[in-house]
């Protein structure tokens, strides 16, 4: 029995859940950013799995776009993190709520 697309989709959904849980439940800003990377990575897995199932390479192109967005997001996010840490001396997202309405 070979591995079908559903296996990849289920794995992708599980990885997405784990990443989303990390974004919601963790308080450390660095780990929240890493969990975001996990979610993006699971979406990439779904893209490539659908690409194989359809025999169409559009999914690969979107995966490259998604990696680019992830790289830009990490660069900006980490720059903000360094800036915030030098001002506030903390990475606790419960303390950093100056924008809360």
């Amino acid at each position, binding site marked *: *029995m*070979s*591995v*079908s*697309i*559903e*296996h*990849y*989709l*289920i*794995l992708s*959904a599980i*990885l*997405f*859940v*784990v990443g*989303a*849980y*990390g974004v919601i*439940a963790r*308080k*450390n800003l*660095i*780990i929240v950013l*890493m*969990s975001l*990377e*996990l979610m993006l*990575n699971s979406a*990439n*897995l*779904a893209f*490539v799995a659908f690409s*194989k*199932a*359809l*025999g169409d*390479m*559009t999914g*690969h*192109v979107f*995966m*490259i*776009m998604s990696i*680019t967005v*992830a*790289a*830009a997001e*990490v*660069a*900006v996010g*980490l*720059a*903000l993190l*360094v800036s915030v840490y030098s001002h506030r*001396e*903390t*990475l*606790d997202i*419960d303390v950093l709520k100056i924008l809360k309405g």
Partner: protein
Amino acid sequence: METVVFYVFAALALAGALLVISFKNPVSSALSLVLTLFSTAVLFVLLLAHFIAVIQILVYAGAIMVLFLFTVMFLNLKPEALKFESKHLHFKVSALLAVLFLVGYFASLGFKKGLLLSNIGASNMDGFGTVEGVGTTLFTDYLLPFELTSILILVAIIGVVVIAKKRAN
């Protein structure tokens, strides 16, 4: 053979993901994330996406993880700066349940689509996922999005420099 490789690396990816969200130390989390990204790269090879697998290792496990580790070490976090995790178990459980229900709903939608797709035999698989195949698709059908990506990178570079530079006052 393919099934064994899939299950081994799916388990490794899942273990890495669980370790990312459970470690207190960001350096340990970052190294667990590398495990997940490498295992996903192996799964990409199983899906005949060889070029994507190489890109995954070079960009994700190489560039992005180095950026993470560099930042963590640059900040030089004291141990007491990491001791602020929420102790509320009920909050964690409710967060997990909310995420599970939401994603389970969307996953079931995708699962129906996937069941339909698994019956379609792929038409022509020669050149699928190679540098040549991906490059041809990227530079013919998706040339404009590819060029716009460079603008995104440029904006990110300028933004990072502006954010990270020292203020005058």
